[in-house]
């Protein structure tokens, strides 16, 4: 009971912290995805403008744009949380405070993440409403929407574990931002956020099935689009990856904290 109160209060505080600079917060979470969407829109428009009625691997122009509008929604909910920067906390010795409080470092960050996620979901619903008013939100069914959102929320947990992992590496590495950028770029490409996975060579696709990447963007998009997706498989695979990274993170924390020097205290 007491522990729940700690989580709830941390979430409340995280809202205050995130919204301390409202405009900045808003631009930060919606700006990059919006820009990314317009780049992709232009890219695909020019590809499709070459030939009337072009269909690429089953996608005509409208379907491709639909795919990318859902991709925007997925990126918002599932991979919105990139602000997490454990590495700076570790390197600058800022985690000392959390080592003193009777509330663990991971609990604090995870609660903040949940707080962020709740805010983010609200903002995504708001942007979908705007899209809908502008008439560019693709058709959807209520069940498709609910399945899609829950799939994205589950994926966001895995995405968080992955971010946490790169942060933990700061115990050993002086700088981790390059790693995070590499991870970001690879993810964007291999998860189907730029090019739908149907356009990848068959061999590459079958290898990708064994990685978490398609589950980050491609499958959630398909769920929103109402395409048949094996839900049991989807949740099963993410659960396994989530468990693996949680175990690694917990191991890294235990090893890392022994190396921690709390620079400057």
């Amino acid at each position, binding site marked *: 009971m*007491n522990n729940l*109160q*700690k989580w*709830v*209060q*941390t979430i409340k*505080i995280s809202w*205050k*912290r995130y919204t*301390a*600079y409202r405009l900045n917060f808003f631009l930060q979470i919606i700006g990059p995805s919006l820009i990314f969407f317009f780049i992709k829109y232009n890219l695909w428009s020019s590809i499709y403008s070459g030939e009337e009625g072009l269909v690429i691997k089953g996608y005509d122009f409208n379907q491709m744009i639909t795919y990318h509008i859902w991709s925007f929604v997925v990126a918002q909910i599932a991979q919105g949380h990139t602000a997490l920067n454990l590495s700076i906390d570790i390197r600058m*010795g*800022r985690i*000392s*405070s959390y*080592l*003193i*409080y*009777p*509330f663990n470092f991971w609990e604090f960050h995870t609660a903040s993440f949940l707080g962020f996620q709740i805010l983010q979901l609200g903002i995504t619903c708001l942007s979908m409403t705007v899209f809908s008013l502008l008439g560019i939100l693709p058709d959807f069914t209520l069940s498709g929407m609910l399945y899609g959102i829950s799939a994205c929320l589950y994926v966001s947990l895995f995405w968080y574990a992955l971010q946490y992992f790169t942060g933990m590496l700061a115990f050993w590495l002086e700088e981790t931002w390059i790693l995070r950028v590499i991870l970001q770029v690879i993810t964007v490409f291999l998860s189907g956020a730029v090019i739908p996975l149907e356009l990848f060579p068959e061999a590459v696709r079958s290898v990708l099935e064994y990685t978490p990447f398609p589950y980050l963007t491609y499958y959630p998009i398909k769920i929103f689009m109402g395409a048949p997706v094996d839900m049991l498989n989807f949740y099963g695979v993410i659960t396994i990856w989530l468990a693996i990274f949680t175990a690694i993170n917990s191991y890294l924390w235990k090893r890392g*904290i*022994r190396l*921690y*020097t*709390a620079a*400057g*205290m």
Partner: protein
Amino acid sequence: MIITKDLTKKFVSYKKEEGMKGAFNSFFKREAVEKFAVDHFDLNIEQGEIIGLLGPNGAGKTTLMKMLTGIIVPSSGTVEIAGHSPWKREKDFRKKIALVMGQKSQLWWDIPSIDSFKLLQKYYEIPDARYNEKINMMGELLNVKDLFHVHVRKLSLGERMKLELMASLLHDPQVLFLDEPTIGLDLVAQENIRQFLKDYHAQHNTTIVLTSHYMADVQALCPHLVLISGGKKSYDGSLEKFENILGHKKSVYFTFNQCIDKTDDFWKTQDVLFSENCDEVELKLDDHEIREVSAAILNKFPVVDFHTEKMPIEKVMKKIMENPEILSGV
């Protein structure tokens, strides 16, 4: 309350060679350099004591403090605080201690301090009634009640420090660690913090470990001093004994309105030091001599000012830093 035995922390760093070639070489073959930040340190602090942990920069104070609070894990040796090993970081242990760092804010920067307090209330599971009582009491004592709703980043350093102290004391810790709590504060703010700590200690009998480079803090608060240099303990004893390391005599200073005669017979019987332009002297006097000798000087010479040393501890520290061997005989 706090017992350490052979407590040691060893850091390993790698030598970096100069230039591109050096960087290339050290990429493949690194030379490890071991440094003992804290070296076989024994300490015994009783419940309710205030101890001042002193030492020059880089002596190992902060490393010791980090081991005592459980932030870093010792390389060897044992440490026990209120029956716990800090490095295990059990929740029970964490509820018993508090740490205030003058150089680092623990309050969340972007929100008002009252929000941080509420969060800490939940973390430390402080009952509402107790929490409200503490907030009111300390808020009044420190005169910061108006600041509770101001964003922390907008506060002055002195204001923030008071709130940091409040935050650390909400849960009635048994042991309070203060790492340079008055650093960068103006004289009035320093004095306020000292007075608050004194009053708080008198009421709660909290065990306090304090590090500071301001000898005024130490003199006002710490009857027990521990000096660390090069990771080793070089002094552990009372403030009084520490002040007398250079001898029991007090320094008394006289300033004259003109150069005086150094060869005067009066000075021959005294332990005296003249300033370069001979208008100032420093005398080393025993307590019982002060009255008599001072009266004689006041009568005989054109004195415009005189004073005794206000903080002998400052002088002792300075001498020790210049010449650590002084302590070998203590």
